[in-house]
């Protein structure tokens, strides 16, 4: 199984690389600090820890881990000539890219599991209460977070496949990352404002039966609903937003929102589609490109 041979090597390369170890240490420090600092963890429930480490650790530093593991995965081998040497042996290109992705995903699972266990252990020492349900949540959290880091990895991998040099690939990867993670929500707001326009002016007149007030509320609700529909559509294109929503969904489905529970199905779909789309694009491009 050539794909396993490549995956084993990639996994070993990743978990022993200085870059990976440095990120793992930073993640650990940030996660432990976020638990001890008390933000998100004022209630001493173990599940709050996941919220803290998702927000402070993985959402930001995890993104960089994924991007930086992926951005030179192909370009580095192309630049050093090892890809050509590798492909002169009986291994298909799809086995190379699948093996690399599998190995990297394995490394992410190990990193997330380690950070989660250590942070969890640290919080127990601080007197957080825990239950069996928290272990189920921990498993869900590890899977979802690993997929999130893999999403960022697939963006890095895509840049690595389309770029000729690692430096160019790094710029492309960060460009896509900034666009989808930070700019997309703002673009959503701008698009919503240009489509929906300014809030309607309703002259509020108090009547004895209150009917004018009801009409005012209906018009404003309708307006904001349209704005929200457009901004949410753009937010679906932000992996970090989808990750937050999915994590919040299984951590505290209703309590987080004073408006009531939100349907996160679209976020879950976006969350799964993102890495798939970027990985498939990388796969097709890698198979079709002239490596030599």
């Amino acid at each position, binding site marked *: 199984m050539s794909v396993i041979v490549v995956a084993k090597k990639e996994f070993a390369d990743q978990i022993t690389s200085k870059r990976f170890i440095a990120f793992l240490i930073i993640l650990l420090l940030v996660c432990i600090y976020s638990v001890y600092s008390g933000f998100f963890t004022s209630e001493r429930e173990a599940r709050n820890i996941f919220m803290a480490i998702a927000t402070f650790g993985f959402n930001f530093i995890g993104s960089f881990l994924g991007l930086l593991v992926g951005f030179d995965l192909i370009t580095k081998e192309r630049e*050093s000539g*090892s890809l050509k040497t*590798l492909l002169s042996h*009986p291994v298909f290109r799809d086995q190379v890219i699948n093996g690399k992705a599998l190995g990297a995903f394995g490394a992410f699972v190990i990193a997330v599991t380690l950070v989660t266990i250590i942070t969890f252990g640290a919080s127990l020492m601080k007197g957080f209460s825990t239950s069996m349900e928290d272990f189920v949540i921990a498993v869900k959290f590890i899977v979802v977070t690993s997929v999130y880091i893999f999403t960022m990895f697939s963006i890095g991998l895509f840049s690595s496949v389309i770029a000729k040099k690692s430096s160019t690939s790094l710029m492309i990867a960060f460009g896509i990352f900034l666009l989808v993670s930070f700019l997309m929500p703002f673009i959503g707001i701008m698009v919503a404002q240009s489509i929906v326009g300014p809030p309607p002016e309703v002259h509020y007149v108090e009547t004895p039966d209150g009917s004018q007030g009801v009409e005012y509320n209906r018009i404003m609700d309708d307006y904001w609903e349209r704005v929200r529909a457009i901004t949410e559509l753009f937010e679906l294109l932000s992996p970090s937003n989808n990750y937050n929503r999915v994590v919040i969904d299984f951590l505290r489905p209703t309590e987080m929102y004073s408006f009531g529970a939100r349907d996160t199905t679209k976020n879950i779909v976006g969350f799964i589609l993102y890495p798939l789309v970027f990985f498939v694009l990388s796969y097709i491009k890698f198979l079709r490109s002239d490596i030599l």
Partner: protein
Amino acid sequence: MIEVENLSKVYGKFKALDGLNLTIEENEVFGFLGPNGSGKTTTINLLMGMLQPTEGRVSIAGIDVVRHPREIKKICGYLPENVGFYDNMSAKSNLLYFSEFYRMSKNEALSRINELLELVELDTDKKVGEFSKGMKQRLGMAQALLNDPEVIFLDEPTSGLDPQGARLFRKIIREQKKEGKTIFFSSHILSEVRDVCETVGILYRGKLITKRKIDEFSSGYRILVQPEPFDDNLMDLLSEFGEISMSDRMILITSERDCRLEVSKKLFENGYYLKELYIKDIDLEEVYMKAIGLEE
């Protein structure tokens, strides 16, 4: 062993290879010559199944390269130009990794790797990142022979090697030839090609302009004579043996037969002494430049 029919590779508007037809027999050492950018590496990559041809067909040992690239790689070895490895691993670890793509047990692989590292005289536990160009080239030769291939493609194999390394490579090529391997050898160093190859092909601007057995490049015999004294009468005296040209107190006779005995007799009878008399080997550089020049 290697059959190439009308092979072409086009990148946009640029024809890297233009209708190449080539046959290389089993156990032949084929020298592939051509200036930079003539399409030598492209040809090797197409023959190894690492590039898709725009047109044409290639088969090695009866296996279609485009349809069965993996099968081709099982019976071929390839030393690319500017060969690259995983810098964070040792020579042995690199070879062990590549061996995992073949049906070899770990013990079998380790024994083969030790044998190959000894063959290329590379005895070090250093990581490849610390290797010199020459050491990488030696490791490249070892990885090309890892699967004991039937056909070996060598793209500029001695570039970056010191004279000792280059001599070792020529020795390895001769040994592989003795073992019955077919070798496709691309090089810029004409003396090296002449030294190890039986057949030579010259590629120019993506087209094969000539392919012959190395001894077929010279028609007849080129006999060099250095008589003493050296005067103008010599031209008439030796003209019966063939075409004569004189330069720098040397006479070059281009003859259809080996007439050295008759030449020495004639000169001696006419009061001349011989400082030098020998058959000049074919000058591949001359052939190469002539072929390229004709094309231009």
